[in-house]
């Protein structure tokens, strides 16, 4: 083992941390938007991710059966479809359920949890209990080798770029568009926003469905990393909430910082301790930080 090899491993380990960061970020973004901006705790967030993953799986099966020539290019289309389907379902859920419960935050918790169970069983009935994996285009697999001893997984790079694009898109959307302005105004003062002519109900629906759409993108991206089962969502949701709560609920920057912190802590601890102990140490670290900063890393400064 020479210095150069150690250096390679250092670089790859750094990438492993960044890769985990991008995964956590994608998980948390949609939730942060819904939870942070609207105060709705969406327990079905994981199931929206699973919807995105299943959409990708469906696309892959369809392409494989009917147009194998399209296999190398279907994946980006599947991601867009995953966004659209999840966003549509999100809008439907907002219209049918969430909007009746805005004044009862604890009830939305229960209602969205019920929704998550319904969705899980729906996936189970349609796709079966077995976990599925879409056939991925060849260019997404394998590794990128800048030197002989460094292997950077291409799927990791892909998820990283996607997470970056989604985050940037969301930032631009929130801070540079008229809709983002209306959304932020509604969050700050709903009555006043209504009085100056903002259709707050429409703002709510858009925000919720975009949050769900981002979950769909996350789900589609995760098919490059793992498999999808009816209850995959319930595994994602823990990490997603961890990111949002640790970051400070109402703050996109907070989610960014918290995803980064958790990912680095976990991958470094996993490297120097071992799998399970690394996870335990990470969770302990989060608990301790939250004891001293109960509002998360970046608490929202709102005058009460």
């Amino acid at each position, binding site marked *: *083992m020479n210095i150069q*090899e*150690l250096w*390679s*491993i250092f670089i*790859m*380990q750094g*990438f*492993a*941390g960044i*890769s*985990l960061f991008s*995964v956590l970020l994608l998980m948390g973004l949609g939730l942060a938007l819904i939870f942070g901006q609207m105060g709705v705790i969406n327990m079905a967030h994981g199931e929206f991710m699973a919807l995105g993953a299943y959409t990708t799986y469906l696309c892959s099966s369809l392409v494989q059966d009917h147009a194998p020539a399209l296999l190398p290019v279907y994946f980006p289309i599947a991601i867009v479809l995953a966004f659209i389907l999840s966003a549509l379902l999100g809008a439907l859920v907002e219209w049918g359920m969430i909007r009746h419960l805005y004044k009862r935050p604890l009830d939305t918790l229960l209602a969205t949890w019920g929704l998550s169970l319904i969705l899980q069983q729906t996936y*189970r009935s349609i796709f079966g*209990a*077995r*976990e*599925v*994996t879409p*056939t991925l285009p060849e260019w997404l*697999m*394998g*590794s990128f*080798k800048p030197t002989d001893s460094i*292997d950077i*997984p*291409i*799927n*990791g790079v892909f998820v990283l770029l996607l997470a970056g694009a989604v985050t940037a898109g969301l930032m631009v959307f929130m801070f540079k568009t008229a809709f983002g302005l209306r959304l932020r105004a509604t969050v700050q003062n709903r009555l006043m926003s209504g009085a100056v002519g903002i259709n707050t109900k429409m703002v709510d629906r858009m925000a919720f469905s975009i949050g769900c759409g981002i979950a769909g993108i996350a789900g589609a991206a*995760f098919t*490059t*990393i*793992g*498999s999808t*089962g*009816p*209850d*995959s969502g319930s*595994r994602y949701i823990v990490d997603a909430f961890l990111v949002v709560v640790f970051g400070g609920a109402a703050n996109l920057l907070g989610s960014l910082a918290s995803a980064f912190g958790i990912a680095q802590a*976990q*991958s*470094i601890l*996993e*490297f120097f301790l*071992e*799998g*399970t102990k*690394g*996870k335990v140490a990470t969770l302990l670290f989060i608990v301790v930080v939250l004891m001293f900063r109960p509002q998360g890393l970046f608490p929202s400064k709102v005058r009460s």
Partner: protein
Amino acid sequence: MKMKDASIMASPHKGNHPGSRLLLGLLTAVAGLTVSLHAEGPPTAQVNTTGLAVTDTTVTVGQLHSATGTMAISETGSIQAEQLAIDQINAAGGVLGRQIKVIKEDGASDWPTFAEKAKKLLVKDKVASVFGCWTSASRKAVLPVFEKENGMLYYPTFYEGLEQSKNVIYTGQEATQQIIAGLDWIAKEKKAKTFYLIGSDYIWPRTSNKIARKHIENVLKGTVVGEEYYALGHTQFGSLINKIKLKKPDVIYAIVVGGSNVSFYKQLKAAGITSDKQTLLTISVTEDEVLGIGGENLTGFYSAMKYFQSQDNPNNAAFVKAFKDKYGEKSVIGDVTQAGYLGPWLWKATVEKAGSFDVDKIAAASSGVEFKGAPEGYVRIHDTNHHLWSKLRIGQWGADGQAKVLYESGLIEPDPFPKGYQ
């Protein structure tokens, strides 16, 4: 298949004096013989003295697996194989002239749920036997229930050993059968000296790796350069893969289960750890898992199992055909699926040997029961420990998701409490 002489045969033996039980046993044996000659069952009162769900024409058994949750990817095959065996037994006249009815319960990959459902099957449904469980965690959860309610469980999975119960027949291999011969082979073939042990974080991988470590250190005189565990359902193996690259083991010894498998092998491949550069031996990947992982992510890696779908013998040809006819051309058969298939057949053979559905009598009669129709070739229940004599095979995975059998051991005696390995 109604018994005409039920009352005649049952009535003289209601007394409780000491000789009656012996006499009953004798009579049962005779009745058992009659069954095979006339394909007609003995009277219910005689084959069922403990209030099991046995009628003149039917016997009810339970099936307890995870149809949902993270283990569903693995357990679905067992559910199907057990059902296939039961259908075949029914088509051939049933057990002691009785058609088998199945009550299916879903353990949902959740161990307390397994215990609860086991209790329901034994106490409420009074099933004559249960085919079920997959993970050791689920078996450990139901074991106290089976022992307290005196049920009979046919457990299909290869597992860590260190267990023996009157109420369980283990139709998969215990750890020493699966681990030792496999490690011996890889050490000899690959001149392997250093091993990296990886597992999902629960009892089977931990105990199996403990046995593997003892064998590597004490017998093979090799070194274990790393040993670690990841939670069930874990999907991020980046740090682990870097550690493997740092320590460069001769062999990665992997016991990752469930959905984590898919992430693990995909990420190994993405990180450039492939069979041309790295030897990997696993005892947790069967044809079932490969279906999810994708053969292209595993090509050239080895599995140590007692059964592979590609095995070439008449029993297996018939089994594979029947399985595909029932579940579709695309379905695959893994080690545990095959072991699941053994359960109902071994139970039938034992019941017929005992001439009774009573759990105590089955437990006693199990010794030496053979099944020559086994797709893996031949199995026999051990005389004392309720495990099976079986062979170990090493398969090398191909991109088509099937393994090529490279090595076959002799019949290995099950040894659930191996001396020097605990």
